[in-house]
């Protein structure tokens, strides 16, 4: 975490943080939507920061753009599409499902299924191995056991 701190400030001239008081929209509902969208958009000149967190000038421009589109009546998805059309899908912090991204989204569930099947197969093997081991008291052993029990 310590270097996050470092890099953030390499990109600013003045020590301010992300959303400025003058950016905030009058309508709280619209503002909430703007914040929500901002969290999913990458500040293009920063390293892995959303425009909601970033102090960079470009991030501010994008935040204002998002709000402009919202005031113009765009839906959340339309705002994102608007930005993807201009900046490419690099701007999205949450990669869209589809195409090669299925690998990304499917990797976890696929591994879970694989691990689950493998795990259950292993457990069944271990539990089946149990059966012969337990029934394997030979006649002598059973006799001896009886002797002990009845002593």
């Amino acid at each position, binding site marked *: 975490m*310590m270097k996050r701190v470092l890099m953030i400030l390499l990109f600013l001239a003045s*020590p301010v943080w992300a959303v400025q008081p003058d950016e905030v929209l009058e309508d709280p509902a619209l503002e909430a939507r703007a914040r929500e969208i901002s969290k999913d958009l990458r500040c293009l000149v920063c*390293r892995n920061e959303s425009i909601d967190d970033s102090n960079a000038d470009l991030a501010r421009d994008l935040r204002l753009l998002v709000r402009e589109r919202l005031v113009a009546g765009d839906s959340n998805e339309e705002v994102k599409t608007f930005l993807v059309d201009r900046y490419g899908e*690099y701007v999205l*912090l*949450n990669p869209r499902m589809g195409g090669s991204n299925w690998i990304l989204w499917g990797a*976890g569930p696929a591994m879970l299924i694989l691990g689950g099947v493998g795990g259950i197969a292993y*457990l069944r093997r271990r539990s089946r191995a*149990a059966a012969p081991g337990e029934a394997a008291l030979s006649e002598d052993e059973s006799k001896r056991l009886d002797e002990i029990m009845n002593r």
Partner: protein
Amino acid sequence: MYPARLLLDAPGCALITRGMIAELGHFALILAFVTACLQMIVPLVGAQKRWPGWMAFAEPAANLQFMLTLVAFAALTYAFVTSDFSLQLVVLNSHSAKPMLYKVTGVWGNHEGSMLLWVLIVTLFGAMAQWFGGNLPPTMRARILAVQGSIGAAFFAFILFTSNPFIRMQVPPFDGQDLNPLLQDPGLAFHPPFLYLGYVGLSMSFSFAVAALIEGRVDAAWGRWVRPWTLAAWMFLTVGIGLGSWWAYYELGWGGFWFWDPVENASFMPWLIAAALLHSAIVVEKRESLKSWTVLLAIIAFGFSLVGAFITRSGIITSVHAFATDPERGVFLLLILGVFVGGALTLYAARAGVMEAKGVFGLVSRESALVFNNILLGVSAFVVFIGTIWPLVSEMFFDRKLSVGAPFFNQAFTPFMVVLGLILPIGAMLPWKRARLGRTVRGLWPAAVLALAVGALIWAIQTERSALGPLGLMLGTWLVAGAVTDLMSRTGRGGNRLGRLARLPRADWGKAVAHGGLGVTMAGIAGLLAWEVEDIRVVQTGESFDVAGFTLTLQAVERVPGPNYVSTMGIVELSKNGERISNLTPEKRVYPVAGQPTTEAAIDNGFLRDVYVVIGDPQEGGGWAMRTYYKPLANWIWGGAILMALGGALSLSDRRYRVAAGARKAPMQGVPAE
């Protein structure tokens, strides 16, 4: 024999001057590299040929390696403390006016110095394996130390050839360029050392795994030996990650605690795998099953530590933390990663068949619960891994330049943790070998009812419609109540249960405390994300405003000089219902030498909530920009991490490890005459 001696005897070097200390450190580092190379080869040959002398070589070598690295580290620290600006590293990262604490911590606030800290810990663990490894069979011990030596050798070579901290300046400047102001924080003193103790601690699990593969022996004893090391590494990682998260929370100015940044993920993946490993090692220890899986996990765990080093230091994956973006270092680290993980996996492929499982257990048993724990932790680590490297893979193979950030991880990772939290209390109470689910679940009824009641109550009283808060607190309650149920169930029936509770093995306490801690952290994260209130506004001096039921008054803004910075400090009174709670002093600092500003948030800490205030720039129309947050349950996140680490420490102090550690000495005392 010792470097100091050599130097003193050399002609013209009768006096060790201040400038020479650095040379001494450099020389010690080279000698440590040579020692590590020898330690890598001699004991390994000795163990193969059964030559006791060659095997015994590992012990003094491990000690010497540690001593020499300590000398090198001390020399570098001395250079920083005395502001020796003939060293390039000191010039780039220090300043004579910097407070002493940050002169010392500045040693590892940079790439080269932090690598030196890294190898210091590698050699420390090597030496500790020798100090505490008395009960290990001689061949095993020799092999473990040889593998540990090889890890040391690789990193000494990395430091000496690509990241030498002892490089001199042609012309020493008058003063240094100062450490990045954001790193001038007590957080730097503790966060990296703990993190490295964790990362590097996993090298011990790796060495044990490789030694066991060479030996062809993995049994209950091996499980007992490897578990404390893994437990210690996991504990240190927990503390390190927790400290880093807390540091980011108070330092960054908006109170984020986790960003899913590649470098954070780099520490999180080994943590998840180490958690899986310390659970599967229990199965090896108690039931002699899951052996080859445990060995594989030990290799992967350290593999992820190396991946972490690669991500942090190669600059291949863009991260806000990236230390250095030097391709040469990246290639070197990739080589180390390839050799160690590739080599170990090859050995594993050749030898895994030798490890035959002995224990037999039913489909419903503690063993199978631990298998599911491992699947969930392993898959969640894999999801983090895929998400971290996906931008790279996608660009290389699919020609799609894209980003993977927090929203992805929140969606793809969280479900696994929720499932883990749901099954944990049940799995933790299932008996070994063969269990009946119904019986265990019956014991947990009160815990489940309590959790549901808490969830329902919070759902009813909260004003928002978000399900996150109630669900998170329900899960947290379920985990904590489950841990308590687990502890109580071990005290049996009848009277004096409290007395028996106090006398339970520390491992039982450790387990319950760590599991409860996980619940506390989960509840904290959910509460903070669900109910946080943010307020951004321009405030005139003397003006009051309300946030989440609290009243804040900006009484004044003052300029306050610090040791190597100038601060703009707001004085804010925090009150509720007219009663003053505290005075908060958020600051904005400017460090003239480094030419950088920082924000210092002011936080009023509470058990159930934090109030977090940040002051920004003066506005054109007068007044100051201010950000205020109401952060419910924030401290639970780190409180839970402390509990988890404490649980690890309790487990580590369990009698059976202490007894095992002293096993070699026991026969020496003889049996008293009866």
